[in-house]
């Protein structure tokens, strides 16, 4: 089964213990990935399943992950995510609204409290490859396609969220 955008976005926050006092940017991210919460396309709801993933939404998910896990500065991270994703939708909000969203997102992200290094180190502490395997089990619903055998624990986490299996549940 494919994770819905909400499962993907909120699941990422929960999984990596990212505490976001303001969920607004993440609600927007979910909408841009195809699931505008409480606004289904019709009474039948979203088609769901594999229909969540097309060339646009898959690249959107990858960008979300890439930006969220790439930088040390979480504020820069979310700004980039939102910029890129607003680009993707093809309908940028009017300038005033864009700036307001930007300020809101900045505030939200400034208060974002998480540390990938700490999260992954704690999980893997002193457990070597067994630690890597257990992190893979925790993050992915299927076996990873490429599990790095060396590198920092945070690099392992980055490899796992970049795995195509990360979109499955």
């Amino acid at each position, binding site marked *: 089964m*494919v994770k819905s955008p909400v499962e993907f976005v909120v699941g990422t926050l929960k999984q990596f213990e990212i505490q976001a006092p303001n969920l607004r940017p993440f609600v927007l991210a979910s909408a841009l990935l195809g699931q505008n919460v409480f606004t289904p396309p019709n009474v039948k709801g979203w088609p769901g399943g594999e229909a969540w993933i097309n060339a*646009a939404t898959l690249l959107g998910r990858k960008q979300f992950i890439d930006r969220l896990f790439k930088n040390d500065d979480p504020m820069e991270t979310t700004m980039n995510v939102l910029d890129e994703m607003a680009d993707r939708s*093809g309908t940028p909000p009017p300038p005033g609204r864009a700036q307001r969203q930007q300020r809101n997102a900045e505030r939200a992200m400034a208060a974002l409290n998480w540390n990938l290094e700490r999260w992954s180190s704690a999980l893997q502490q002193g457990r070597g490859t067994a630690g890597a395997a257990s992190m893979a089990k925790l993050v992915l619903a*299927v076996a990873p396609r490429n599990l790095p055998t060396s590198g920092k624990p945070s690099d392992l986490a980055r490899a796992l969220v970049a795995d195509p299996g990360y979109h499955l549940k």
Partner: protein
Amino acid sequence: MNRRRFLTGVGTATVAVTLPLFGRRDGVSWAQAPRHALAATPYQKLLILIELKGANDGLNTVVPYADPRYASLRPRLALERASLLTLTEQAALHPSLKPLMALWDNKQLAIIQGLGYPSPNLSHFRSIKIWDTASKSDEYLDAGWLARTFAQTPAPAAFAAEGVVVGSNDMGPLSGQGTRTLALADTAQFLRSAKLAQAGKDERNSALRHILSVETVVVHAASKLNTNYQFKNEFPRGTFAGQVRTAAQLVASKAGIAAIRLTLGGFDTHANQLGTHANLLRELAEGIDALTSALVELNRWDSTLVMTYCEFGRRPKENQSNGTDHGTANVQFATGGRVRGGMYGEAPRLGSLDGNGNLAFAVDFRSTYSTVISQWWEQDAARVLNGRFEPVEFLRA
């Protein structure tokens, strides 16, 4: 098939008899042609669809000015006769469509009136689904009509993609599994993010297989597309013009693409329609004008067909909010170097509206798809459309 259509056009009675001969001759010429994958594909000819999202008001787009009922149904919304761009003794274009007049004067603008389908559905969502999947009113199909065309006759593997959706995440007529379809807003940005994708296959898990196939499509397309070409003409500003520029850039990549879909949104003009509609039509016309220049510059004007579509038209009688409500039959445009300009279909019959005050349709919308599939791409339209629909003859032989 061009000769065959030419003969049909001049009304030769022996067409049916001579057909096999021409068919065979075509076969011979193909056999002698170099067996080059790209040379043999119907998709050297490009289709660019423009969705007028929200349902364009056809009566204020191609105005039946000579019919007195037009002005009486629309005391506040009827456009001034003096401002209109005259096409024929019956019809005139909205003044914002001035950039299209050059195409009309060149006899390259086809105007297809009275498009619709039996038992029309007035919900945006449902009716656009009917148009996208070329279904009957009460029929629910999963795959879009273009996706089904590509399933029947795939584009060569060397093509960057079969279809590209620009500026929307909704695949519309290109939705359906197995179609190599991209959605992007901007080519450069697509190429940046495509670096995150990795090709792969052969998974037993079907969801994973789907994800990997999408990644493979992205990686392949990214290897073909580029943004190297510098256009001589400037593109207008605005969201839709940005999509037009992206489409032109895709064509300039010479990467092989069979269909591109653009979307201009905001046509759901229930209130205070006049200004909004004038701006939207200006955006549309300036966009088509810029697209025309770009395609001419790329030497692709003769091998491109541009066509508009939307879910339905709007009700002839204006509403209480200076707007118009959801209607039925509507008018669409087709243009391109091989389009035979003129009026097609049937002018709106304002005198015989149905019980809801809506127009009767004259031409099934699937007839325009039939033109694309059977005459533009010379493929079997009946199989894709699950039935025979007489093509609208707006293409030159």
